[in-house]
């Protein structure tokens, strides 16, 4: 791109002498016809008005209107990058110059992104809009009202992408990781170079990403990491039921319990395949007002469904539980819990079974099957098979 390089050289020569001076007052603008150099001068004349430290005049939005869109687009991008380059250099001055260098590199990178896909893809525009918006936001904290005009300028510069600024905030969040990653790598580079001199006018300039008050790479990285983790936690919240907890620690507890519960369910279900789909284990309910115990499987709603086809295994478990109950109720409870079952009084069981009596329907969740008198023990006992069902049962879930 011959004109590009020529323009860059011109710009560089113009930039260098002006960098030291933050108060450049240029003659009034001449609207260019087709000459790129004139356009350059015009751009540069309005540069100092946007310096962060000292605002002179409101920024005149896009000069790109006067230029040919096709040709001027590339130049606009380059110039925009140069603009910001100068902005930051002028603004920072002797201050955080690594930050300036990094910011330059950053801007240049996004310029390259735009230029690379200037013909078609709108994704880079999004990126640019977003990145610039975010960087503008950060700069805003320092600069004040200049950033809005800069933002408007940039929006005007991206030819044909003005409509995309509306969507920029949608992309802000997913773009922040890329932005942050680039920023971080950029910062490392800039710190290594540690240059106070203006970066050479190449397309591969590295610009530092300013994110609010913290220029410390560690804190920025920390913040990004926290954001990403928060994203993941939100995604997990949708998967796990009872996800109404806002506290992250309790959310993690919930997740852990749910994973344990699911694994236990798999174990229980695989046990149910034995002996031709025999019952996993029966639940033994004491006649006449025993105690009520919630299911051992944390988080899941109680009441699965499993038929008791094999009386032997049922009897075995019954005897086992009865034996344990004689010695110590706690161990009996633990035994039952290990099988994924619970103990409940008959009255409650009948209430549940009458309310959800479609035990054969595999789509049903929370169904109980009650069979009276199958057990060899006293007629007051009823045998129930309870399995905790996954609350997310459904067809199209996955």
């Amino acid at each position, binding site marked *: 791109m011959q004109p590009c390089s020529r323009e860059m050289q011109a710009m560089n020569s113009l930039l260098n002498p002006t960098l030291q001076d933050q108060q450049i007052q240029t003659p009034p603008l001449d609207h260019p016809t087709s000459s790129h150099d004139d356009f350059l001068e015009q751009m540069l004349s309005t540069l100092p008005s946007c310096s962060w430290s000292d605002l002179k005049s409101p920024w005149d939005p896009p000069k790109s209107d006067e230029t040919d869109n096709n040709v001027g687009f590339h130049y606009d991008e380059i110039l925009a990058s140069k603009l910001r380059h100068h902005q930051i250099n002028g603004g920072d001055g002797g201050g955080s110059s690594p930050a300036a260098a990094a910011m330059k590199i950053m801007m240049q990178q996004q310029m390259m992104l735009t230029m690379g896909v200037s013909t078609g893809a709108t994704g880079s525009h999004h990126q640019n809009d977003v990145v610039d918006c975010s960087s503008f936001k950060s700069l805003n904290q320092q600069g004040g009202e200049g950033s809005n005009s800069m933002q408007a300028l940039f929006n005007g510069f991206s030819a044909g992408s003005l409509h995309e600024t509306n969507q920029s905030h949608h992309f802000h969040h997913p773009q922040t990781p890329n932005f942050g990653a680039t920023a971080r790598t950029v910062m490392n580079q800039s710190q290594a170079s540690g240059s106070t001199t203006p970066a050479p006018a190449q397309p591969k300039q590295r610009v530092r990403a300013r994110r609010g008050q913290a220029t410390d790479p560690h804190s920025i990285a920390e913040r*990004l990491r926290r954001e990403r*983790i928060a994203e993941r936690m939100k995604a997990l919240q949708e*998967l796990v039921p009872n996800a109404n907890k806002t506290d*992250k620690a309790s959310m993690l507890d919930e997740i852990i319990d749910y994973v344990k519960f699911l694994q236990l369910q*798999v174990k229980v279900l695989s046990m149910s395949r034995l002996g031709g789909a025999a019952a996993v284990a029966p639940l033994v309910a004491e006649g006449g007002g025993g105690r009520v115990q919630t299911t051992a499987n944390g988080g899941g709603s109680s009441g699965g469904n499993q038929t008791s086809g094999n009386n032997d295994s049922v009897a075995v478990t019954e005897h086992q539980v009865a034996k344990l109950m004689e010695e110590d109720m706690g161990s009996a409870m633990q035994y039952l819990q290990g099988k994924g079952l619970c103990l409940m009084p008959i009255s409650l069981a009948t209430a549940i079974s009458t309310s959800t009596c479609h035990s*054969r329907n595999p789509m049903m969740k929370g169904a109980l099957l009650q069979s009276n008198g199958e057990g060899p023990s006293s007629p007051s006992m009823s045998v129930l098979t309870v399995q905790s069902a996954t609350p997310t049962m459904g067809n199209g*879930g996955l």
Partner: protein
Amino acid sequence: MNKYNPPRMNPSSLRSRFATRFLRSLSEINAQKPTASSSSPTEIFRRYRRIKVAADKSMAYSVRSRRTWSRAMLWKLRTRPCGRRSVKTSTIVRKTRHEKQNKNTTTATTTGEDGVVSGVEADELRELVPGGEAMDLYNLLDETAHYIKCLTTQVQVMKKIADFYSP
């Protein structure tokens, strides 16, 4: 008995892949089931183990090696039946491979706690999710999400199978 028509499902979805594999392995297990001694606890336990392993393996194979937890589970299942054959070296190899995989994903040097999540719970999660020991928190959460999704699939399919075959 069953008027229940299975819904038209995507043939390449996780659920159908797992169901196919699991049913196949179940039929294999049933084929080799001895008629007697079904009720002895050891035999029952062994059968249970076999079925559970089949379920886990089916699930891990359905996910292929796309996920860290599936890779870890497959590796675990592969070395487990063969006893303690060269477990130590394999463990080391696995850990380094995990670390290499996750090194480029860890972005920043963590300063211990990031103020969001306590380390104790993260460790507990690491124990639960296979292959989670060598992962940082961010990837761990990612793996957990996928693992939960696959576990729910597994449970749903197994439950439907059990209901189908129960009298």
